[in-house]
């Protein structure tokens, strides 16, 4: 179940890391902002109902979109794309440092504003479940699906499909891909690369924020929560194959499933370790990801 939301979270990162090859440390913070944004929308505005948090998450993501665009314009554009093509490490060092700095500022800023008490979004649906079955007669299997999570999953799938459509079918989506793939060539084709990168970055941030808002309905969070998720996001994107939006979704899904399954066989402490072992296995033996097509050659 969590898998689908993880999938969405990875799709957000795939926009930034997969397409633009920018290692963004602040992604976890966008996720966290999505959580808080959703939380305040739900509690202050009283957006209720089954889909309340999901709707709130989408609204919150708009704010994160604006923030993402701002961060890109003010900071990142100076260390990505054309500005650094061909310099030492293609600008990786400044990117790392810049996003790490942004991540520190945002996480600690949130700590100042929101305090460090763990929070969770409560709704009447958090504890109720849909019952499916029983299958196979009266004493067969019964399936319980938590309603809050169920709604979150549906929302995740919906947003992912929307993003997929946006990236692969619309002109703007194609423009973004071109600008990310080869900034120089895109410039010659008359594409405003800086603007495209800004949009990609902001969209990526916003999508991850939606995922954050959805996770917030069942997962207690505090300002440093981003760090817990950022690694999972990278794992999912690499698992799915760099540059593939749908791949990232499946990658996140698999990670969610593995995490859930490992509770059955492994002690609690090793559960998260399992994700990294899986991640290492994939990256060492199949660096192009499960769904990626091409590998970078030397």
């Amino acid at each position, binding site marked *: 179940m969590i898998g689908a939301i993880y999938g969405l979270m990875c799709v957000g990162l795939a926009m930034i*890391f997969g397409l633009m*090859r920018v*290692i963004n440390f602040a992604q976890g913070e966008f996720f966290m902002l999505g959580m808080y944004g959703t939380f305040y929308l739900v509690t202050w505005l009283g957006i209720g109902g089954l889909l309340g948090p999901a709707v709130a998450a989408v609204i919150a993501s708009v704010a994160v979109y604006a923030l993402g665009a701002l961060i890109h314009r003010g*900071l990142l554009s*100076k*260390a990505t794309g054309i500005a650094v093509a061909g310099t*030492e*490490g293609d600008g*990786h*060092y*400044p990117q*790392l*440092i*810049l996003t*790490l*700095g*942004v*991540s*520190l*500022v945002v*996480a*600690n*800023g*949130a*700590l*100042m504003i929101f*305090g*460090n008490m763990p929070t969770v979004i409560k709704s009447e649906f958090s504890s109720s479940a849909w019952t499916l079955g029983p299958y196979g007669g009266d004493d067969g299997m019964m399936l319980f699906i938590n309603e809050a999570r169920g709604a979150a999953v549906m929302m995740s799938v919906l947003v992912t499909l929307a993003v997929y459509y946006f990236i692969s079918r619309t002109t703007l989506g194609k423009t973004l891909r071109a600008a990310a793939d080869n900034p120089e060539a895109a410039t010659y084709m008359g594409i405003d690369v800086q603007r495209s990168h800004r949009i990609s970055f902001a969209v990526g941030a916003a999508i991850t924020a939606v995922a954050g808002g959805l996770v917030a309905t069942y997962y207690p969070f505090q*300002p440093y929560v981003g*760090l817990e998720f950022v*690694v999972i996001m*990278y*794992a999912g994107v*690499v698992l799915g194959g*760099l540059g593939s939006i749908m791949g990232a979704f499946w990658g996140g899904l698999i990670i969610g499933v593995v995490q859930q399954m490992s509770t059955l066989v492994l*002690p609690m*402490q*090793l*559960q*998260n*370790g399992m994700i*990294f*072992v899986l*991640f*290492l296995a994939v*990256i*060492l033996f199949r*660096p192009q990801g499960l769904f990626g097509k091409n590998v*970078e050659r*030397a």
Partner: protein
Amino acid sequence: MKKHLDTPGIKAIGAVALAFLFAGFWIDDPYIKQIFINVTIWAMMGVAWNVFSGYTGLVSFGHAAFFGLGVYTVVILALEYDVTPWIGMPLGILAGVIAGALIGLPTFRLRGVYFALAMLAYPLTLLYIFEWLGYQEPTIPMKREDSWMFMQFENDFFMLVIGAVLMSVAVWISSRIHASRFGLSLSALKQNELAAEGVGIDTKAWKLRAIMVSGGIAGAAGGFYAIVFLVATPNSAFGMLSSAQAMIVALFGGVSTVWGPVVGSMMLIPLSELFEATIGHYLLGTRGILLGVAIVVMMLYAQDGLFPKLREWLLRGRDEVTKPSSVDAPPAMADQAPRVIGSDVVLKVSGLSKSFGGLKAVSDVSFEVRQGEVLGIIGPNGAGKTTMFNLLNGFIRADAGRVEYGNQNLVGMAPNRVCALGVGRTFQVVRPFPRMSVLHNVVVGAYVRESDDNAAFEAARQALARVGMQAYEDVLAGGLNSLELRLMEIARVLAGQPKLLLLDETLAGLGGEEVEVVLGVISRLASEGQTIVIIEHTMQAMVRLVDRFVVLDHGTVLASGKPEEVTKNPLVVEAYLGKKWMENAQH
């Protein structure tokens, strides 16, 4: 001055350490003394990160793995086996070195972001393993009676001394690496890994050495951390923050400089601690915000870090290199001895084949190269010429066939081994190490033959003189024009004193006069007895240069023989000019 800044010796490092200790000695406030100690820990971590990631260009998010192993080695040995940190610490360093090897071996197959992300996973996996093993918060037991034996000093100053000594040793190691073959090899593979491998640098071995040294230094930092704080938690040892902080101080201070990480640590650690101590009590997260803002501002105004800016300021006005106006190539055909072509076969290629997917790039190619001859491999674009060279020097592994050189089969051998045996090559698209001087570029090529560094520099200077580039020694390779780059690449491969020289379209992209200069250099080499195989797709220039042609088309040998025979061969003319031209020519 310049030397002390770039590659400080024992004296310069000692002076800095003493000044640091002198400042620390007068401070009574235990909190500030603690900050001084922290500076040494993170300076070490920064140096460790820099020795690997800074010098090789492979970004590591995982230095917490080595740090954490150092921490836990010392703590667990003291707790469970009553072993003093005097012994625990060296074992912690050893743990770091071994972990470096174990992590490096499988992970070096990855490049770029993949490598960085794989490195992220190691410390986090270790974090959960140590949590699972039940080491949530082991502490080093107090030993009041023999405090010296267990490094538990009454006076914090002794701790600071140990920190300063360890930091100095780390800086000294980094400086030694920077100034030596080790550093130049790393720098070369960072700037162009394929070229480094091609001129005989064993890139895998150097990377492995770098990560082992780096792991050792990080292990020492971890061990020292354990001695200072007496406690280990999985998060403080293996958490993201340990990796990030090492990276931040190094990048802030200046990547791939010796002093950079130390400068970064001395600036950032006190700054963040002092803020935490003052405003931090009222407002949570001040330290984080300050660190964040500091590094963001630094990146916007000085992308290379603080130390390079300082260096520039200290050395302003000096250190300027002017590029010579032109190459001083030896005269072309004037005083040439006739070539002597021996009967010995230097290289025997038989049945060599390689396909990519369904495309047969090279199929069943056989030819021989004799001692002292210049063999030209020609053919239209896409004929498989460069693939052929890549097969010969080991960049690509052949599907079938043999490449016999002396009594060895080169197929399946690593490129640096092939080069060490005496087969040197240049590249179709020039592959310089752009941020190194011309002399250093060529020295990298000399290492394969000369085990002594001075001899390597001597060989490099001679090689430069042979192509007429002796005046360019201190010019950065990034500022050269195409002719100069071509000549430098020839010098780089000559410095390795190859028995067989493979030149890949050395004339490509050169103007008329420039072609003459390069042709002059090559024919001079030939008259000195150098065996050469040269690839070209234009025939005119080659006819004057070569003794024999092998013509490739669509991956197969179309014809071979003396220039005058080959140029009259109808098959060759057809391949070059098309059937239509042939038909017209017959009328």
